[in-house]
């Protein structure tokens, strides 16, 4: 069902990956910037420490979530996170992260994750938004900027009666205006930096002005504290290094060559 908003401005959060400190900072920042509603596009756990700490923040902030592959897997106690990795090195790290997350997510939070919708439809001014995790057809589809053709995005918009398609899953933000005047927005991720050598993370503001304005907002948070919490919890040092340096050290094999070339590893 479409959610009718009188709001002009909404904030969209990508994968949180248990980064409760970045989530707290982003929610405060979004309110300060006049966001009248906040949506999270899924994957609340994974990668970071203490996965239960994000839930009170989401509830208090009235964040409306869609279900990511991680949320579905944690809710169901699936054998793996369903991230869609096909490379053994990626899967090695994904297994470690998933085992930790599922062990530390309370049953009531797992139940809550299990009933999240796979997509949300939002009317923002005259713009019809479709919010999903990976893609409208597959929760763990990777829509990277360099591997997602205009023709495919136009097809998704047509098939789902949307003007603005919003998604996450890859962890790298991008926005493209399509030839038809529609938009595609990868809202990025709050959970880990985006492989650019800085520890900041990002969320997205959409404003109906009445033209659509897409803004990516950097979030500076106490990443050193998060890194210490991760180390104390025994999470892999490769994950901790990413939080501290901003460079991805693992889960790189799925990344297309253009995006891969921008990183350090």
């Amino acid at each position, binding site marked *: 069902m479409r959610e009718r908003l009188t709001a002009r401005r909404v904030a969209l959060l990508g994968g949180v990956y248990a980064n409760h400190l970045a989530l707290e900072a982003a929610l405060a920042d979004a309110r300060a910037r006049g966001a009248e509603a906040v949506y999270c596009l899924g994957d609340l756990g994974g990668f970071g420490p203490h996965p239960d700490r994000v839930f009170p923040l989401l509830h208090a902030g009235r964040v409306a979530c869609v279900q990511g592959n991680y949320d579905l897997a944690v809710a169901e106690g699936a054998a793996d996170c369903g991230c869609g990795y*096909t*490379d*053994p090195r990626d899967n090695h790290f994904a297994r470690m992260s998933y085992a930790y997350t599922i062990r530390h997510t309370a049953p009531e939070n797992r139940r809550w994750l299990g009933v999240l919708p796979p997509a949300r439809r939002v009317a923002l001014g005259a713009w019809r938004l479709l919010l999903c995790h990976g893609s409208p*057809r597959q929760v763990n589809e990777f829509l*990277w900027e*360099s*591997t*997602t*053709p205009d*023709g*495919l995005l*136009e*097809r*998704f918009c047509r098939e789902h009666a949307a003007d603005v398609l919003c998604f996450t899953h890859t962890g790298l933000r991008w926005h493209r205006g399509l030839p038809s005047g529609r938009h595609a927005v990868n809202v990025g991720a709050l959970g880990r930096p985006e492989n650019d050598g800085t520890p900041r993370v990002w969320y997205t503001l959409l404003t109906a002005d009445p033209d659509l304005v897409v803004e990516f907002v950097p979030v500076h948070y106490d990443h050193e504290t998060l890194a210490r919490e991760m180390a104390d919890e025994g999470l892999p040092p490769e994950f901790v290094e990413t939080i501290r340096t901003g460079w991805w050290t693992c889960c*790189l*094999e*799925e990344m*297309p*060559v*253009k*995006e*891969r*070339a921008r990183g350090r*590893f």
Partner: protein
Amino acid sequence: MASRVTERLVDAPCTDRVPRATFQGLRALWFQLAGTLCNLACRHCFNASGPRPPWLAPLDPAMVRRAIAEAEALGVREFYFTGGEPLLHPDLFPLLERALAVAPTTLLTNGTLVDEPIADRLAAIAEASRYSLEVRVSVDGATAEESDAVRGRGSFDKALRAARLLATRRLYPIVTATEIASPNASALYERLRARLLEAGVERPRVKILPVIPTGRAARPDGTLPLSVEDLAGASHVRLQCAEARAVADGGIYACPILAGLPGARMARERLVDALGPTPLYHPACRTCYETGLTCANA
């Protein structure tokens, strides 16, 4: 592995009683660009490519351009250029540019013909494109001894050189190997990755594939095709023919493995006519079904 030398891919009967995979939408479109023309004649080649006059002719560039345009309208996700050896096609580079104007594209090569000018050209095409150009370089083991026994003397070192030339131009190639010389896929993955690093290939990317029992790797005792009972209740999404097609001389085919076979031809000209249920009639369909094989990058 005992193998029967077959100088063309053998078709199988396709009747009304074979199981069919429901088509889920076009994600990948393959181009059998060089047909089965190749400078190597690998012992396990699933479509029996080689330097002799090919049984499947290289593609007419006009057909490639037409299919690219059709695929764009259908919302395709990615293109693949294969063969044979696509670097033998005289129009490879302009066709790559045309494909990359529409969608990310992967070039599959044995790497032996990649020299500095070709690597430079590929890097320039990649740089000019909004979408990623991926290059896959094929070997068949983690050592020259293993791989050359399958692909021919000197081919491994040339492929490694190609991988290095591409990686130094930030076109980090995906180096693929079948399990023919080393059936332990995870051990082969690690050995090949280590060998690439040792050879100076930065950021090595590795993909291991099963041997497809067709063409020169067809088993003497044959492989049974799938039956309707085999597929009862199964998901067809894991079959690549549920979301891919291959353009080859003579038409549009069910998948890149069966490209060129009359039984796998889904249409003669128009892609839009080739999107019906796919007959799973060939013994190779069992390999895809049982191994979850995809010829795609991921």
